[in-house]
């Protein structure tokens, strides 16, 4: 009844030689333990690379400027904010464009990730229904794409810093890197969670769009932390419990810190307190807390994703 295994005809990669017993075993069942799913996710990291490359290639395909848009887009957005806040709203902060840029850099990573990740399973329904792979990778690829844009924007930032003749505060560079990691972890966790929920509740995608507009104003990106008028203790606590606040402040502290020394005298003469007067330790504690919280969100997101993943192919 059963065909006898014949020796391979020299076909196929050697690691898939027709030696039967030692082939890797896989289990398909209603509950796949988290550990196994993480292993599978790690195994498909190359796929992540291909998906990110696909996103980058497809996004500006067939447009005249093509890839230039990935630089032009953030630069133009920055220009708009700059004109509005500097000239219409008379912001008097020194080197305000740089301040804006530092905050926007951190924000865009978060914003781009969630904006595209929340609808990603629905828009890739074709693959989800026909191919078996770790589907979390689709959401993570959106975060990966956002990270690529983050680096493009960093290139513009370097030009900016040169233009303003400002050096970043190098003592805070490790904090900046840590804040970047926190930003990625937070974005990844929420991206995976939202993409899964959106399969069942398509409102999520639209709700996220609006929510992100509101969240944009929650950390001090277009305004100064110092000017926030929340004096009631509870409100203040609530405001400062925002993880985005810590990420944005860390970015600003490093990139903008040399323009206005925190709590110190303003470069331009008057007395300006743009940044909070915290020591380095406070920043590290804040960003560290965001990383821990972000990891918990990731864990939660993976658990939720695993619970609902089995029905994706039918729900889409």
């Amino acid at each position, binding site marked *: *009844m*059963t*065909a*006898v*295994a*014949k*020796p*391979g*005809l020299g*076909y*196929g*990669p050697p690691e*898939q030689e*027709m030696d*039967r*017993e030692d*082939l*890797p*075993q*896989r*289990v*398909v*069942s*209603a509950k*796949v333990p988290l550990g196994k799913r993480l292993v599978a996710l790690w195994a*498909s990291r*190359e*796929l992540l*690379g*291909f*998906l990110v*490359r*696909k996103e980058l*290639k*497809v996004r500006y*395909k*067939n447009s005249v400027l093509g890839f230039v848009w990935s630089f032009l887009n953030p630069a133009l957005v920055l220009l708009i904010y700059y004109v509005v806040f500097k000239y219409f709203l008379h912001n008097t902060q020194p080197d305000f464009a740089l301040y804006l840029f530092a905050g926007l850099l951190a924000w865009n990573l978060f914003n781009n990730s969630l904006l595209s990740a929340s609808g990603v399973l629905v828009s*890739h329904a*074709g*693959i989800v*229904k*026909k*191919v*078996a*792979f770790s589907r979390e990778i689709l959401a993570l690829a959106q975060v990966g794409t956002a990270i690529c844009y983050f680096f493009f924007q960093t290139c513009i930032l370097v030009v900016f810093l040169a233009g303003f003749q400002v050096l970043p505060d190098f003592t805070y560079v490790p904090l900046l890197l840590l804040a970047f990691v926190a930003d990625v972890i937070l974005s990844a966790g929420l991206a995976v969670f939202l993409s899964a929920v959106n399969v*069942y*509740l*398509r*409102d999520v995608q639209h*709700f996220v769009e609006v929510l992100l507009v509101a969240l944009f104003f929650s950390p001090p990106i277009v305004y100064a932390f110092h000017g926030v008028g929340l004096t009631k203790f509870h409100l203040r606590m609530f405001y400062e419990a925002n993880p985005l606040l810590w990420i944005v402040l860390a970015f600003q502290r490093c990139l903008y810190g040399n323009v206005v020394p925190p709590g110190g005298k303003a470069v331009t003469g008057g007395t300006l307190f743009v940044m909070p007067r915290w020591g380095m330790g406070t920043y590290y504690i804040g960003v560290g807390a965001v990383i821990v919280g972000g990891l918990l969100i990731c864990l939660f997101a993976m658990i939720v994703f695993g619970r609902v*993943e*089995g*029905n994706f*192919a*039918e729900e889409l």
Partner: protein
Amino acid sequence: MSLAIDVQSVSKRFRLYKEKYTSLKERIVHAGKVPFEEFWALRDVELEIPQGETLGILGRNGSGKSTLLKCMAGILQPTSGQILLRGHLAAMLELGAGFQPEMSGRDNIFLNASLLGLSKKQIEKSFDEIVAFAELEPFIDNQVRFYSSGMYVRLGFAVAVNVHPDILLVDEVLAVGDERFQQKCMERIQQFKQEGRTIVVVSHAADVMRQICDRVAVIDAGALISVAAPGEAIRAFRDRLIETGDAATPLPAVEETGAVPLVVDPTGPVPVVADRRVAITGCRLELPGAPERAHVFPGEGITIALDLRVRARVPNVAFGCAVFSDNGHLLFDCDSTMIGERHDLEPGPSTVLFEFTELPLLDGRYTVNVRVQEAGAGTVYARQEPAGTFEVVNPGRATGLVTLPFRVNLKPQQLG
């Protein structure tokens, strides 16, 4: 021999929603009373597939065969039970699923193969082979959206087979491209078999099953009916179709006489009564295996009994009979005068027996027409179209239309 796929009491429940509520407003409005019916697409399926076997899954539409395949592929997770898979698996459920029309063929090969679980190094190694197999060398750097549908599926197939999986799952996708490419696909599948890889094919093309499968599993209403050698399983499948009345032309219930009564439908285009002297009063198909079996095996015989009522004497008549294949081709037409017989019809009831002593036919459904006509001339006194249909089920592995007496001898040649 260890198992490549071990399906352990797998069940899969779907919820069939009358309407799907996916927006928040709809969910709130219909909270707690979303109308759905539970539907078990698979019920307690147990299936063991040893390594190196080619297994076919046969079933009609909606029987759960594709669901089973999707569970094996890990696209759907079973509601209960589990499936153990040993080795690298690739599923061809839809060719070119996930192709990005905006990207070049080259980029799509990398993305698609990576989705199927290949590492970058492996893709680079088999890249040329994939392109050559798909015969797309001149177009590989063109955007896929400019590909013809044939080029598209060719590329999809080429990627899937060149992933070199230990287990290949195929869902009705073998009939792609032109005839030559289909041939190539078949050859590749055969090669897979020779290499000892495990293949699971879902199809309702019984011929393909017979050709390539070692065993065939028949699934109906989510339950496994039989797992057996192809001929046997295909017979079980046909029997089930007939049993549940889903065969294209169901044969009526068979009585212990072994006859299939034929009801003359007054609204139909038959029978043509050309002469008032002869009338057809009944027609039966007598099958050798009835009533246990509503089909014929190749080489068995059948008899068609035609009841006539004759009002006045008709001299020199011929009784004719024609057999048609499923798609309307005439296979055989002959009448009694052609085989040198001469009959006269006397008044009163009589029965004509058309006897086929041996049917050299393979699988298929066949239609029989009968007629009473003037010998040697064209005047038809009465005819019945169709007089009945019968089905031939082939338990062996030969494919085609007819079974020919066949033998193979090997004789060593004397060297000069």
